[in-house]
């Protein structure tokens, strides 16, 4: 496999973050962003952005009343 340049690495950042690539490529990108001043901060930002989306969209548990209503349907 030929070595990836910055542009190629940046194109693969989402897939890297999603864990959607084979191990060889994953390790190659991991090493690149650890060492690269261009790609490193961009990767870190995207990672934090995704974590933020997940965090901010958290919800509490299903309301007790709703849950009770659902489970009551099973008794009918």
């Amino acid at each position, binding site marked *: 496999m030929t070595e990836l340049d910055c542009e190629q690495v*940046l*194109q693969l*950042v*989402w*897939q890297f973050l*999603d*864990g*959607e690539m084979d191990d060889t490529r994953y390790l190659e990108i991991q090493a690149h962003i650890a060492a690269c001043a261009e790609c490193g*901060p*961009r990767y*870190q*930002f*995207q990672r*934090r*952005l*995704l974590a*933020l*989306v*997940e965090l*901010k*969209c*958290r*919800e509490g*548990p*299903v309301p007790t009343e*709703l*849950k009770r*209503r*659902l*489970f009551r*349907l*099973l008794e*009918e």
Partner: protein
Amino acid sequence: MGATVLASQTAPVTADDRERFQALAEEHLDSLFRAALRLTRNRTRAEDLLQETFLRAWRSFHTFKPGTNARAWLYKILMNAYIDGYRKATREPEIVDHEDVDEFYLYTKVQESDDFRRAGDPEEVLLARLMDADVKGALDSLPDAFREVVILADIEGFSYKEIADLLRIPIGTVMSRLHRGRRQLQVKLWEYAKRAHYVNADKPPAGSGGR
């Protein structure tokens, strides 16, 4: 409504079935509700969708094979119920896509903003200032096709393959919608950041002579 649905079940229901189903539902109900809230963007509709999902799952519980992926099975039912009854019936008009926007839109905007650059860690300042309502609002504003994929990937944590199965679309389509959705999300988040006066991004710095 529940009674008629249950009466149509083919196999007789045993107390054991009910218990197993309750345990399964108990485990996944909170995350199904979260997904329903994001998909419908409305609490009442989310409750209805959750109930519909719950009943459909119970009705077809005899087809569930113990030991297989219960979460994927339940989300498949959720997405089918959503597609059948909640997704807009009309095809969305031509989706406005920001093809000119790059994958690192938000990062670039922060880097270009004098206001943020004055802060020690501009990226941190931006992310810390975005509130729950901003992120949810930005997500809610995306076209359905993008929104669904972003919800399943970024909130519910499904893989590309799993999303492809849930939405019955090719993996390539999942990837392109996810990337485009994340791009639009960033554009929206930047708008929110500006609108809320967190940033005076478009204003020239004081004393620079104005426009």
